[in-house]
């Protein structure tokens, strides 16, 4: 086995990657007229917003469930159980984000938008998988 220090290091790396994901763009679409819709953990930003764009923010709180799972991961540095719960829950949350991403991409392509995945989502997936590897490893070590 990889040992407890390495497992904890993986959890920490997962938390750092996840924290970075909270401030970077998750995905974006560029439509005609250079209108760009950027989805982040804490809201949707519309660049070059046209006048007839609907008011309101479609995704202000995607970061909330992820922030909670990240807190569980941090607690998991000392409590093995919390690490497993945090990593599994974060994987579940990423699952929902993944199906939303596929759906949004479909809509964007249909409306001739140029869809792109942001670094935030890459970091979120990498962070989740790294933390999960650490959380699984830490379960096998004596507390």
């Amino acid at each position, binding site marked *: 086995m990889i040992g407890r220090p390495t497992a904890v290091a993986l959890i920490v790396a997962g938390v750092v990657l996840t924290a970075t994901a909270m401030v970077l763009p998750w995905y974006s679409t560029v439509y005609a007229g250079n209108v760009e819709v950027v989805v982040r953990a804490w809201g949707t930003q519309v660049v070059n917003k046209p006048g007839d764009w609907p008011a309101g923010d479609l995704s202000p709180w995607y970061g909330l469930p992820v922030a909670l799972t990240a807190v569980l991961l941090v607690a998991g540095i000392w409590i093995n159980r919390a690490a*497993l719960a*945090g990593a599994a829950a*974060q994987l*579940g949350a990423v699952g929902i984000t993944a199906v939303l991403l596929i759906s949004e991409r479909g809509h964007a392509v249909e409306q001739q938008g140029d869809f792109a995945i942001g670094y935030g989502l890459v970091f979120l997936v990498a962070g989740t998988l790294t933390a999960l590897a650490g959380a699984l490893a830490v379960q096998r070590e004596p507390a």
Partner: protein
Amino acid sequence: MKLLSAVLLGLAAAAAVAATFLPLSELLIRLTPDQPQTEFVTTGWSTHFGGTKDEHGPLFGIPVAAAAATVLLGIRWRKVAYAGAAALAGVTGMLFVYLLNAISFHKAGNITIDPGLEAGFGNGIWVLISAVVLAFGAVVVHPDD
């Protein structure tokens, strides 16, 4: 206790899968003042706007089904049950946030056109939350440690 936890885990998985076929959010909105209200229903497997199906509707049923399968596998191992329950909670939490955002977005965007607008959660989300509670309950009584 082994039997009780197995029954609870089975129920939790069944409830989670059943929830994907129930409405997660239901909106009754008018897009222009002179039009009749259209029903906008999202389930785990489809999004319908009136009679029109959204070809790219998000398939929330997939992560829910994956978490439910893990919960079911947890009948054999307590830690798997625990991880499955946590995964189901994560799926439910993120889905809840998405639905809450979508419901309030449509409410805010259309209320001036249609004061009679109705927008809210469907029964699916409540069944899904119940499944999470059942799954954690099963973990608590699970004897294998």
